[in-house]
């Protein structure tokens, strides 16, 4: 299985990469870690005439805190997320989520920016980004624009990223102290995509929920933000009744595609179960 022929470009800076994208036009595709794109190219699901490899652009890597925001270069790998002390301390949801992605080898190559830009609802970062209220920096010939994760994902393999733009950075507001977090993912085996998965960030005030943020993986054509469930939970205690209702509201917006992982009803039920478990686990970790 060998991809169709293409021309390879390895720019050294974001500016050069954008210039290249402009020159090469829509036949060019960005190469990040390559663990979604190259398999698609082998199967001829994708046949770009040009690959622009972002792997040599040092400015696209790294994790730092600027003010009350965590900034992650788009080419930062899953392996780097997993070994980041800053993330473990400030945004452990991202570390937990990265650990559920693929397998060790894929995590050395796979990048957070690639996972997000691919626009695959089965990828894990979109739901994590929704739960963390992240924003994305999109850099193009006219400069930068910053867009919210909520609203970025338009459809299957379709995002707000324009053909002449590059997702360069992920910005995450540092979660409030004491926030609980959890990513619960049901998969058949290592390396599989989620049958269903739910990302939760939870702030408590006393016994009641101050704020819940819930992202659903692989439950529709894009990641889904479980708005009704979030709104319902505000002010409620976490108990069986509220968990059941939040799960029901999350399931209500699911429209999963049937495949070998199960039919739509099963996947919807599993989305409810992952939502319940993620809320429980986040609640157990939250400090009021």
């Amino acid at each position, binding site marked *: 299985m060998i991809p169709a022929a*293409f*021309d390879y470009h390895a720019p050294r800076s974001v500016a050069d990469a954008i210039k290249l994208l402009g020159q090469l036009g829509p036949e060019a595709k960005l190469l990040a870690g390559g*663990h979604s794109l*190259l*398999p698609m190219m082998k199967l001829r699901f994708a046949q770009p005439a040009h690959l622009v490899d972002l792997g040599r652009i040092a400015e696209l890597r790294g994790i730092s805190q600027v003010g009350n925001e965590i900034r992650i270069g788009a080419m930062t790998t899953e392996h780097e997320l997993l070994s980041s002390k800053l993330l473990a301390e400030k945004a452990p949801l991202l570390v937990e989520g990265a650990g559920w992605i*693929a*397998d060790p080898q894929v995590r050395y*190559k796979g990048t957070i920016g690639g996972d997000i830009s691919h626009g695959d609802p089965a990828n894990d970062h979109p739901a994590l980004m929704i739960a963390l209220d992240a924003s994305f920096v999109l850099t193009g010939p006219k400069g930068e624009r910053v867009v919210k994760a909520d609203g970025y994902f338009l459809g299957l393999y379709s995002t707000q990223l324009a053909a002449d733009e590059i997702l360069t950075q992920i910005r995450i507001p540092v979660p409030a102290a004491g926030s609980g977090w959890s990513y619960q993912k049901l998969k058949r085996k290592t*390396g599989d995509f989620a049958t269903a998965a739910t990302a939760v960030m939870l702030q408590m005030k006393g016994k009641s929920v101050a704020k819940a943020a819930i992202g659903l993986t692989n439950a529709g054509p894009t990641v889904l933000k479980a708005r009704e469930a979030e709104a319902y939970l505000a002010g409620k205690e976490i108990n069986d009744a509220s968990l059941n209702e939040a799960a029901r509201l999350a399931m209500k917006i699911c429209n999963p595609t049937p495949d070998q992982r199960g039919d739509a009803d099963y996947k919807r039920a599993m989305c409810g179960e992952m939502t319940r478990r993620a809320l429980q686990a986040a609640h157990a970790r939250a400090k009021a």
Partner: protein
Amino acid sequence: MAKTQKVSFKLNGKPVEATVEARELLIYTLREKLAHTGPHIGCETSHCGACTVDLDGMSVKSCTVLTVQCEGAELTTIEGMEQGGALHALQQAFHEEHGLQCGYCTPGMITRAYRLLKENPNPSEQDIRKGIAGNLCRCTGYQNIVKAVQSAAKKLAAAR
């Protein structure tokens, strides 16, 4: 005539060069141009890990890396594990603990375990099982592979 380009990298410490099309996957360059047939082609879909090699300090599946991405890189394959005629502690341990049956997954398994032990010299059984989750073995049930990695970790620790 397809467009080709020259790629240079270090393979098991020695500088090598290959002329490839951009679409050539690293596993083919290693096996067919550079005569390194230790890394195996199993699934060719980045699932099985038989093609695992060490690339700039990362375990990667060489069926899902383009050779052109490796310009200037340092690569280690199973062929580079033995030093001065002596097996690497991992190779010795796989032998002693019966960590293989058919042997097809073994080069990838050992190359992956090599990086795992560099990053975590004293892994728990759980660390090892998680660490080799990207390598499939259809014979052993993993039990003896885990034992072999544990045994190698101990020997390497004792030698330090």
